[in-house]
């Protein structure tokens, strides 16, 4: 149980996908302008990360590894995740239209997001069990959510700030992202010692 908590917390804070691993930067910079779109995107990412792990973990363990096809991991995972997201979209549209409407635009956007692919591959690399892998996916999604929400707050402050002309737009956003990411490095080493 302690191990699961450590995995969850370290996925959210220490190995935060956006701020420490630098995966999923594209939506992080693109969709973080407004709080509600950032929330929608993050919820979709959490959802897809969980689904993708649940689908790809058995494929790796029962299909690829026994047959010595580990090198096909990336291409097979992309294929499966892409198909899965499409399927989820169809199902949501049919049965939960309200959820489809709120996630709608963001679902196809994250079909082959590197954060999603990264979670599934890193789950295998770390040698997690299925439960651990699911917890790690949840933590990674929550970490993405945290980064997005935090950064949308940062951006709304930048919007009102008097930024030098040459820094306006993307440059100041990248500087802010760097500082936000730096602040997350402070978590390093905290979780391991929490349960020691």
């Amino acid at each position, binding site marked *: 149980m302690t191990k699961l908590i450590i995995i969850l917390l370290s996925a959210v804070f220490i190995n935060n996908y956006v701020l420490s691993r630098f995966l999923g930067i594209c939506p992080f910079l693109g969709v973080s302008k407004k709080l509600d779109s950032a929330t929608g995107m993050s919820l979709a990412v959490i959802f897809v990360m969980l689904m993708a792990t649940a689908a790809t973990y058995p*494929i790796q363990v029962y*299909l*690829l590894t026994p*047959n010595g*096809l580990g*090198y*096909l991991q990336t*291409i*097979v995972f992309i*294929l*499966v995740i*892409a*198909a899965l997201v*499409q*399927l989820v979209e*169809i*199902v949501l*549209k*049919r*049965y939960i*239209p309200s959820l489809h409407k709120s996630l709608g635009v963001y679902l196809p956007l994250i079909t082959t997001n590197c954060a999603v692919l990264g979670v599934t591959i890193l789950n295998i690399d770390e040698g997690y069990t299925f439960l651990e892998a699911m917890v790690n996916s949840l933590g990674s999604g929550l970490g993405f959510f945290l980064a997005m929400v935090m950064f949308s707050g940062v951006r709304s402050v930048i919007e009102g700030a008097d930024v030098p002309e040459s820094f306006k737009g993307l440059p100041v956003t990248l500087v802010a992202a760097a500082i936000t990411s730096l602040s997350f490095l402070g978590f390093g080493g905290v979780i391991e010692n929490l349960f020691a």
Partner: protein
Amino acid sequence: MEAILTAVIPVVIIGVICAAVLVIASKVMAVKEDERFPKVRECLPGANCGACGFAGCDGYAKALCENPDTPTNLCIPGADGVSRQLSEVLGVEFADVVEQVAVVHCSGDCAHTQDKVQYEGIESCTAAKLMYGGKGSCTYGCLGLGDCAKVCPQDAVCVDNGVARINPKDCVGCGMCAKACPNHLISLVADVERVVVACSSKDKGAVTRKVCSAGCIGCKKCEKVCPLGAIKVENNVAVIDYDKCHDCPDFAACAKSCTTGCILIADLQGYHRLKG
């Protein structure tokens, strides 16, 4: 060769399975969309102005498809043309649209009123109003910074000599300017109306006279000359009840008698008449 096959075959199989699942899912779980929806949506102008009371043109089209009681004459920018098309697509009786145009209830231009401060803040009426009710001496009047002109999808509004003016030949009556005006000076009237009160000052006559030479001073002269009792002075400003104003036997008596000239004779039949 064998190495290639052992790699290709599993991927192909996985791909085919995924494709098959997706095909089946899209067939089984297809959502039935009303086939009239795209046709209805095509009839609407797509300005998303909200004059119909729904959330954009998509919202109105959806309401028309789902609820047969939704009136087809709610699209004011589209006027009779759109209403006729909608009634044809939906197979209901044609309903006449009451075409509207926006009018500005203020005539306080630079010739009639003065500035009390020199405003150099943000170029927005809403921002200017926060500072002592705007730069002009009349706190009820046009702020002259053109919030209305910025939102107009037809470029029908311009700020001329310090007061907003609306060209009825371009105005489609969507009412976005009316929502944007922080002083609520703009209203929509049916485009058959002929007289408009161009003042909204609720100040007493003496105060209004001091700050603006074209303001309504509430003298009630118009009330007396109106043969139909359609014009009333309420809160120190004349208000026309357009329900009574039609078919006036003594056309524009109010405008001709007005001591400050704040009741205007206006030809509002522009855009809609041109469109038929």
